[in-house]
């Protein structure tokens, strides 16, 4: 990593933020129950990144680095350690202002998600980073801090296991974020 000046670090952070906000939001929304929690994860991840902006790698690698940060933030979140209330308030409002139409949820999708929940954490992450985030094994390996060979092995095992579980799992209806309906605009005055 080359040495950047303070002003360059800030410009780099802005660029990285603009380029990675959506992938990070998607990453968070895919891994939490409530959209408001995704706002917390995104805010916390970028706040950590801002504090460590000197360490953010060059543009191409920044997204992977941020997934790694988000993964740790998410782990804290699952332990109940993240309670951000001050940052990301507007993002939280926007994300929660979407309503969900449960009737539109397709049972097959729910079966897949239920099966995913039964995989081990690392197997699930390998699969999701590959299919949902669209990462190559080398990139997945970088996010998870394991070798690319290990990712390939896990990937084929996770696929086989998921196939098995989806086949076994009975279809269950549920309330999962899926179809977005337009929010009602707020009264202006």
């Amino acid at each position, binding site marked *: 990593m080359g040495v950047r000046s303070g002003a360059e670090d*800030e410009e780099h952070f802005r660029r990285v933020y603009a380029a990675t906000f959506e992938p990070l939001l998607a990453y968070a929304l895919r891994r939490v129950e409530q959209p408001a929690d995704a706002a917390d994860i995104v805010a916390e991840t970028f706040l*950590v990144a801002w*504090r*460590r*902006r000197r360490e953010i790698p060059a543009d191409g690698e920044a997204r992977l680095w941020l997934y790694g940060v988000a993964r740790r933030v998410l782990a804290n979140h699952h332990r109940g350690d993240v309670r951000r209330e001050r*940052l990301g308030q*507007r*993002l939280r409002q926007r994300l929660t202002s979407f309503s969900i139409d449960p009737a539109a949820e397709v049972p097959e999708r729910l079966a897949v998600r239920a099966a995913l929940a039964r995989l081990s954490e690392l197997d699930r992450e390998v699969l999701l980073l590959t299919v949902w985030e669209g990462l190559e094994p080398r990139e997945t390996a970088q996010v998870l801090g394991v070798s690319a060979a290990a990712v390939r092995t896990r990937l084929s095992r996770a696929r086989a296991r998921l196939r098995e579980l989806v086949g076994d799992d009975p279809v269950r209806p549920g309330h999962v974020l899926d179809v977005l309906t337009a929010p009602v605009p707020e009264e202006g005055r």
Partner: protein
Amino acid sequence: MIDDQLHDADPYRPEIIGHLDGADQTLLEEIMSADRMPAPWRRRLIAPIAAAAALIGVLAVSAVVRHERPETHEAVRPAPTTSSQWSALILRAAEQNPRLLIQEPGWKITTVYGFTENTGTMRFTKGDRELEINWYPAAQYQGYYTHRLDVSKPEPGRVDGIDGSIFTYSASDFAIMLKPNDDTFAELRTGGKWTRSAFDQELTKIKRVDVQTWLTAMPLEIVTPGRADEAAAKVLEGVPLPPKFDRSALNAVGTNDPYQFGAAVAARVGCGWIVEWQRAKQAGDQAASKKAADALRGSHQWKFLQQMTKDGAYPTVFWETADQIAAGTLPVGYRDALGCP
């Protein structure tokens, strides 16, 4: 096949990006400008820098940063050595800030930081509404103003006789930027559910007060200079201090809420241990470097850091940095990450 099914089960809907209404930009601004790092002068420069960079290029901006730093950062001035010198310094800082208070029952001051320089933040909360006041050096007024013109068309407004411009972020989110008064200018921005008429109404209740009234208005949990010694003693209980640690320097951090005060203390203790760790490493003093590494590793047990986790990310960053050093690696940019003085 299973990949197709999995792909189809992806809960993310890209349409959501089109419905954010600028919330992503607001978060960026919050992170870069309202970040809770105990070195406000640095982040206060960011918005005008961003605005100016487009016009005059990065080289000229770097010159602005170099030019601004000695004027605004107290740490580069000779440190006062007596408490009366500290008081004089704080008093001067309080004189420079706008000292705006909401003169209406029910508003509580929930966040305070800055005050040793001509930048600072105060947040007032009442029910589900917030009003945040930030102030900046008067010299940066034009840069901020130009930046805010991207938000909306300005409309005239006024706070206690000071003229300003009202900017509309959304139907429930407004700000007023006041014209410079002495060394600073203030910007007030809403948080939570507001209407324009409620905002206009609230602006009539905000008054500029004298230094004494302003300091007295701080709630008990806010660490004012007069309460710094007591607060420091409490925070530092059970915390190992690095060699040559100067407790009296904690009087120089101004007026802060407990989170900001905690961050200022942690930065001084943590950075002190890091300096000691580096020195010991270089000198080949294994006992001392182990002692410093142990102190940093032990920061997970510092009560005040544990308490701060509910309010922000500072402890997370502190512990990550401390753990890396305890494991033998000095992370690049640790000074920025911790806010070393």
